[in-house]
């Protein structure tokens, strides 16, 4: 019965945890997916609107945000699989290092925005 479940890297080990914990793990996964979508929405908005910082800085800003969104989506999956495996094997849950990546991405986007605005103001 368990052999049919995919991916086997997750379901092939350990024993079934309380399903309420699996459900909570799914909701965490979905929250990361929505974080990814929110970052993407901002990237699209930056593309569509004129911020007065020049087309090049604006495209760079959108690229940074889209890349951060991609990282958030990747972590959603990886974090879900690692947490589910850890729960099955009754090990401590993995840490949340991916949060730092998202924080760094958003901070970088902010720097691009502020930097481009300042450069515009000086010239």
């Amino acid at each position, binding site marked *: *019965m368990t052999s*049919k*479940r*995919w*991916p086997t890297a*997750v*379901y092939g080990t350990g024993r079934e945890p*309380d*399903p*309420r914990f*699996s*459900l*909570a793990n*799914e*909701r965490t*996964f*979905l*929250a990361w*997916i*929505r974080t*990814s*979508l929110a970052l*993407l*929405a901002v*990237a*699209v908005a930056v*593309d*569509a609107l004129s911020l007065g910082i*020049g*087309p*090049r800085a*604006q*495209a*760079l800003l*959108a*690229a940074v945000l*889209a*890349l951060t*969104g*991609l990282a958030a*989506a*990747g972590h*959603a*999956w990886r974090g*879900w*699989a690692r947490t*589910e495996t850890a729960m099955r094997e009754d090990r401590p849950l993995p840490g949340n290092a991916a949060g730092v990546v998202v924080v760094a991405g958003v901070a970088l986007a902010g720097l691009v925005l502020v930097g481009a605005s300042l450069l515009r103001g000086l010239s």
Partner: protein
Amino acid sequence: MSPDVPARDPGLQQERTALAWRRTGLALSVGALLLTRLTLDTLGTAVVVPAAVAFVLAAWVVSVTLRGRRYASAHPDEPSFDRILRDGRVPAAVTLVAAALAVGELLNALVQLVRA
């Protein structure tokens, strides 16, 4: 109601999870449509093909999570508890769509960066 009837999960875990799936599925569908429209001018009409795939996948996620069979029971005391088989297929599909949208927007931004 006798006291022997098993109590429902007071945390409403399955309902909350089902709702989280639905709003994520809807957000993915809307995201796919919006991104298609906005990248059409930059990346050309070829975007329509991956966009259609992404939209169909997102719609599939919504339909799977609306059927509710996945959420038959999340409480150990309920009889159908042992029969639910949750696995990683739907999460994988959702991740793929979100990643594809991110790559699409990244391409769009890079094309604009080169042209600027």
